[in-house]
């Protein structure tokens, strides 16, 4: 079939819009990346656009030599791995039993969980709870309180529900207990959803800072990377890193800010495109039953 001329013009407009979209999404990150690789002098002259001027890795070496920053990176990485493992364990333990229709009390538990999605107590009641549990200023306050997301649990549950019941029933007849069924039948079939939800949890933890700011304000050594970045970005002139190294020429702090931002961003930018196929599927599952 020959395409009509108007449809071809339409195609061109659509492609143009998409190119524009790519530029709008990509250029801000690219520009900061380029700045992080430019010399402070070029930044002061403000003529760094799309390619590094006077290529310079000093900012990176300064940031990576800063003990506070590198520790925050390493600590946040450990925290992210730990939180993701815990969250996935809780999510699976919550979602799996709820797919058994014979389970008595299933509806009540489902309701108990759903209510928390639409109504929450608020920040101060949580603060009082954390205080009672001695979690204030403890790193555990970044681990426990938000370890299970209802939204992610629903995605998990929907995925498990879509696995044919016959598989489970035949295993039950063979005398397998629910735990065996979970480990040897369901989990091997769920790698894609596990990858997706792990990504969601990991990104959430890596990017989060509000809980540390509110509930762990006095425990500076355990600040996550984003909170440290917040203070770096907000600082008007020189960063700790810059002053410590006796490096405080104008523009240097700009380069350091750009480098600090890039170092914390690059890990995520490297990972997410590989998981694209999975998370599209995951979001779609959430939408079906959410």
């Amino acid at each position, binding site marked *: 079939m020959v395409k009509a001329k108007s449809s071809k013009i339409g195609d061109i407009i659509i492609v143009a819009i998409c190119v524009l979209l790519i530029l709008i999404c990509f250029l801000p*990150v690219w520009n900061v990346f380029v700045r992080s690789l430019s010399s402070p002098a070029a930044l002061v002259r403000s003529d760094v656009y799309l390619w590094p001027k006077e290529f310079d890795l000093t900012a990176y070496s300064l940031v990576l030599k800063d003990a506070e920053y590198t520790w925050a990176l390493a600590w946040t990485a450990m925290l992210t791995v730990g939180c993701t493992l815990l969250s996935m364990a809780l999510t699976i333990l919550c979602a799996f039993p709820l797919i058994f229709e014979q389970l008595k009390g299933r509806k009540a538990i489902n309701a108990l969980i759903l209510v928390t999605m639409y109504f929450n107590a608020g920040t101060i*009641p949580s603060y009082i709870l954390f205080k009672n549990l001695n979690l204030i200023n403890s790193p555990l306050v970044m681990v*426990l309180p938000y370890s299970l997301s209802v939204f992610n649990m629903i995605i998990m549950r929907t995925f498990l529900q879509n696995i044919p019941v016959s598989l489970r029933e035949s295993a039950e007849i063979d005398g397998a207990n629910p735990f065996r069924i979970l480990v040897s039948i369901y989990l091997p079939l769920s790698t894609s959803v596990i990858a997706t939800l792990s990504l969601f949890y990991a990104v959430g933890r890596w990017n989060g800072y509000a809980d540390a700011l509110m509930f762990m304000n006095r425990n500076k050594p355990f600040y996550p990377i984003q909170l440290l970045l917040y203070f770096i970005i907000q600082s008007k002139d020189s960063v700790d890193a810059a002053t410590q190294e006796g490096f405080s020429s104008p523009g240097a702090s700009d380069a350091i800010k750009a480098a600090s931002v890039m170092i*914390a961003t690059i890990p995520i930018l490297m990972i997410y495109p590989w998981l694209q196929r999975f998370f599209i599927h995951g979001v779609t599952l959430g939408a079906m039953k959410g």
Partner: protein
Amino acid sequence: MTAQTRAQKTIGRGNSKMYVKRYWMLYAMLLLPVAYFIIFKYVPMTYIQVAFKKFSITKSPWDMEWAKNGGFEYFIKAFSNRDFLYAVRNTLTLNILGLIFGFPAPIILALILNELPYPRFKRITQTVAYMPHFLSWIIISGLALQLLATRFGLVNIVLRNMGLEAIQFLDKPTNWVWTYVFLGVWQSVGWNTIIYLAALTGINPELYEAAAVDGASRLRKIWHITLPGLRSTIIILLILSLGQIIGSEFDRPFALTNTLVTSVSNVLSIFVYNYGIKGTQQSLATAVGFFQSVIGVIFLISANLIARRFDERGLW
């Protein structure tokens, strides 16, 4: 609490030993998750009473004294507090603008992506469009400062080189509001297309073929086939966003704000943080948080009722 005890009772009530033998493990698995919800979600709900009581750091919420005016002292105080009234205004302004621009954007983008004739290019566009969703608001605020700052921001350098006047994107309250809204759309538009694109795959292709035979133009096909196919998804997401209309996230305004624009950037979450966590007016901050949650639920329920009135499926 009731659900857990009920769940425990049902084990006992299950008169066949078989049932217990077969399923006790499922309850064991649920133990930790249910404990999580009770401890971290339901116990704080009982602390909402702090909103009606005089906060004391040494007492448990159950033992605190009742507040004046039949317990409503802090609600009255909130509504005569200028900061609070501004915070309500700012929250509504930012959320409503966010809804007006942020809600249709992914629908339009999904329609555009759906019309894109080159699968590979479509994939690349999607990958790049999803990227902002993975950046933290701290990082986005860092990007925004580097790009939009009045003197050294890239955009203003370009504007000045073109002989135009620099724009104070972040330092002038009205401009800040638009920057905030734009950054929100920027961050979420690509990600939010995923749901719509998934819904689009559910539309029967024969409809398009029939329309093509009838000589329907591209826009007519979008209007008569694609949009109706998205209808129920759009309504459900709209209900959910309306439930968020007075809700306020913390990460985004806190990361993007600066001292020059607090008159428009102080939203309810920041009010609660300033008064209840940095300050010592815990009862007032609890009252504000409770007010926010209740209004949110009311909006959600009304939006759902309206949707069902119009014969839509709704959330429940």
